Each structure stands twice: as structure tokens, then as C-alpha cells.
């Protein structure tokens, strides 16, 4: 076996030990603890607000558009942070490049705005 694969063996053993540890502790707890369930105890938040409704509630589909727009700016940020750290070296060239990049992304936002996507009807 090559060194490369051997180092994956370590990862595998580590994972197995992790799973085994969780199993052992949960199993020990189950054997040792007293078991007297009642209604109040089984609630998700024993001392919190009374839960209402079903757990399968639907989220409004309109949030989806906002999630998409968020992803747009998220990706933008990923590119802007390293660029900003090195802006001095990139000089005017970098500035223009980033301006073009942001312009194209901004076009997407203006498009969404113009099409009335941002309105909460």
C-alpha cells in the first residue's frame, strides 16, 4: 500500500473510533438511566413556549427568489474580498476588471427589480 493510501487509512480509523465512541456513550446512558416518560417530558422544549401546528409547515415560495439574490451577492463577496486585499498591486487594471464584474452582477439585480420580483404582493 502506498503512503498516499495509508494516510487515508488513518482517516478511516479516526472515523471508526469516532462512531464507536458515540455508540458506546449513548448505549451506556441507555443502560444506566431511569426511564419514566410522560407527555411534558417528551416535548421538544420542556420549559418553553407551547408548540403549535404541524412540523411540516410550508415556507412561502417567494423566499426562494430572495435566497437566489442572496447567493448572487454571496458569490460576489467571495471574489471581492481577496481582490480588495490586493487592490494596490492590481492598480487601475484591477479596478476596471472588478467594475465590469460588479456591473454584470448588478444587471441581474436591476433585472429582477424591473421585473417586479422584489415586490411582496
Amino acid at each position, binding site marked *: 500500500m502506498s503512503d498516499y493510501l495509508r494516510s487515508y487509512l488513518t482517516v478511516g480509523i479516526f472515523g471508526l473510533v469516532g462512531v464507536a465512541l458515540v455508540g458506546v456513550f449513548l448505549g451506556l446512558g441507555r443502560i444506566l438511566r431511569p426511564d419514566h416518560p410522560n407527555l411534558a417530558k417528551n416535548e421538544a422544549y420542556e420549559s418553553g413556549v407551547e408548540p403549535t401546528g404541524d412540523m411540516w409547515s410550508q415556507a412561502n415560495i417567494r423566499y426562494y427568489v430572495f435566497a437566489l439574490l442572496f447567493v448572487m451577492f454571496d458569490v460576489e463577496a467571495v471574489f471581492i474580498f481577496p481582490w480588495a486585499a490586493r487592490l494596490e498591486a492590481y492598480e487601475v487594471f484591477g479596478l476596471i476588471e472588478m467594475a465590469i464584474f460588479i456591473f454584470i452582477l448588478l*444587471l441581474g439585480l436591476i433585472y429582477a427589480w424591473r421585473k417586479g420580483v422584489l415586490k411582496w404582493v
Partner: protein
Amino acid sequence: MLAALAAEVGDFVRPPIDWHAAAPELTLLAFGVLLTLMDIVWLERGRKWAPALASIGLLATMVPIITLAVDGADRSMFGGAFVVDKYALIMKAVFILAGYIVVLISSNYISEGDYWENEYYGLLLSSILGMILMASARDLITIFIALELLSIPAYMLATWRKRDLKSNEAGLKYYLMGVFASAILLYGMSLLYGASGTTLLVDLNESISASDSPSAIVVMGIIFVIVGFAFKVSAVPFHTWAPDTYEGAPTPVTAFLSVASKAAGFVALMNMLFVGFIGRDDVYEPMIFALAAVSMTVGNLIALRQTNIVRMLAYSGVAQAGYMLAPLAVASDVPDSALAATVSYLVIYAVMNLGAFAVVIAVARKTRSAEIDDYRGLFHYAPGLTVAMTIFLFALAGIPPLGGWWAKFRIMGAVIEANTVSGVVLGVFVAVNSVIALYYYARIGAKMWADEAPDGDLTPVRVPASLKSALVLTVAATIVFGVLPGLVGDVTKVSLLAGVGG
């Protein structure tokens, strides 16, 4: 912490940019932005200009491609990650012209169906942008970016008939399979990067072909990469999305997927095989051999039993992908003729398949269906369309003197020239499959010419001008490529091995 990292990297040197080499991509990008701007400013009033602006954009992109071809010099940027050579220029021209014909056959379909129009052409242009970028990509990351840029708009285009369940199914299946393939591809690429430490295809080849026998990681990497692209070109056993997607998607989009998207998959595959893997032919050649042989046979056999013409064309497309893969299985023995054979097949296939879909769209304007039985008696009320369809079908079957004949001849020439057992076996496969394929192509021909029209309905098909011009262009090209094969032969005398890396 970022500043500390940056200090270690050293001074930033601006990469020299050859604006002429990047001009096709930049032109197309500019027109895509223009299309979006027009939508923002004019909203619905811009609708009728969208197809015009898209086709102007595509034709404008041809200008730098032609000037680059006239100039003739091989150009290379970003350390060899972006290469403009003759092969790249031919493929770019194919994508642009195929895109132009798709715009021609879409314009009436999209506006009469009351679908979103500005967005349709915007997405079409960005998908084509990914394709022309793919033709120049010689680097794992560039290839992946180009692949995603061409795929993601295509997923959306497949669902364009938003309120039609079949179209939703088409898009969803295409999306899920496509993303799955991308994941496999990316995993393969990561393995190759791990084994070689470079993303540049030229360096990758040098690194993985250094030893006599490949390491397990390299084998896995190559297999995963080929599987990823096999989805894109719909080779058996990775073809399962194709028939459902083709049937459900709007027909112009189907034409686009079956021609441009498939060609893009082949371009990527050829870049990988001829530049990145060429020294490891012991790994990829058996795999490509199996894919080619199985794709041809299974595609043709299933096509025999189809009753819907779009599904039939989908399976025929699977078989055609098999033909195009065949020369790649002898890529290391006769690299130049193998590459030229596949490139010429792609060029000719693009023309004849787009033409066949144009006829399907034209006929569906009257019959509202794509069932083969509805083509009965077509000759009695649409003789022009019948002649065109017959030309495309016989071209696809490979009957001289139409274009498809020359394409198949090149394929046969390459596999025989290799003079290896696998090459000769593939030659036999191609020959036998051509005969099987002739049956289902000719069956439609017989229905069109000999049968009576259903219900004796002889109202003629009204073909709008843009669709008509697409038909004229494709018919002319199919015949010219068949009668003057030297034309394609001269153009496609390309080599990926020389001038790479520059």
C-alpha cells in the same frame, strides 16, 4: 491574515492579454449584456427585437473568428489555459452558426407560444458563450467553467414550456443527470490534479504518462472524466436522460441540445483526450471503444421501435455519438486523421440534424404532434418539406452524395487507417449499424412519400420566412458537403498536438 498571505505570493504581474484572441467571447458577452439591458429598459416592448439582436450578436461574433482565421497564427494566453488555433476556430464557427440557425428556427415558435422571449435569447447566447470558450479551453478549471456556463442555461431552456408537465420533466431530468455528471467529472478532475499537481492539460499529460503503468488514481481520474463527458454527449449507458428531455423540451431547444450541446461535449472530450490523456491511451482507449460500440448498437436498435419522431431522433443522436466516438478510440495510433474525422462528422452532423429538427418544427405547426404516423402523406400537402426531410434523413443514414456519407467515410477511413484489431472491429460496427439505421430513416421516408394523408386533410403547412431560410441554409450545406467533400476535408485538417502550450 489575507494581507500576510498576499505578501507571500509576491508581486502581481498582470497577465498579458491578447484582445484579438479573446474578441469572439467578449463580443458575444457584450451582446448578451445588451440583450439584458434592452429587457430592463423596454420590458415587453423589446420582445420583437430580441431574436434580431441575438442573431446580430452571433453574426458579429463571426467577424473576429474570421479575422483570427485569416491571421492564422496560433495564440495562447494564461500560460496555455486558453488557446486559439485552427481547431478551436472551426469549432467556434460551428457553435456560432448552429446557434444562428437555432435562433432562426426559434423565433416563431417562441413568440407564438407566448413564452418569455428576451430571457430565452439571453440564455441561448450565454450557453453559446460557454461553448466557444470550451473550444479554446486547455485547462481543467477553464473546461469546467465553460461546461457549467453552457449547461446551466440549457437546463433552464429545457423547461421553457413552463406550464407543460412534460417540459418540466424534461428540464428536471436533464438538470439532475447533468449535475450528477458534473459531480463525477469534477471528482475525476480532482483525482487527476492530486496525481499530477497541475490543472494545465499539457503538463497533466506529461505527468501522467511518465511511468510505464498508470497508478490507480490516474486510472480512476481518467475514467470519471470520460464518464462525465459521456453524459454530455449522451453515449450509452449514460444516455437515459436524452429521449425524455428531447421529447419534453421545446423543439428548437431540443435541436440546440442535440447539436450544439453534444458538439460541446465532444470538443471537451477531444481536448481532454488529445491534449491531456494522449500518453495514457492504454487507459482511455478500451473505454472509448466500449462506449462507441455500445452507443451505436443500442441507439440504433432502440430507434427502430420509436413511434415519435423526436424520440427517434434522440436515439439516432445516441447512435451518431457512437460513430463520432469511434475514431477517438484509435486516437493514439492515427491522431491527426482521428481528430479530423470526428471534427468533420461534428460539422456535418450539426447541419443535417438541425435541418431535420427544422422540418419537425415546421410540420408540427400544422399537425401539433411529433408522431411518426402524422407524417403520412406529407408529400401530398407539403412537397418542399418532404424533399428537405428526405435529404436530411438520407444524409443522417449516410447515403451518397449527401453530407452524411462523407462524414461516415472519414470515420471509416480513420478506424481502418489505424490498422489495429479494435479499429477494424469498430469499422465493422459502423458498417453494420449504418444498415440498421437506414431502415428507420427510410421508414419515415416511405410514410411521407407513399401513404395517404390522415383524414385526407390536405391544407398546406405555412412555413414562416425565418424557418424557411433555416431550411434553405441546412439543405444547401448538406448537399454541398456531400458533393464537394474536399471543402470540409481541407478545413478540418487540424491537429491538436502541435502548437499546444505555446
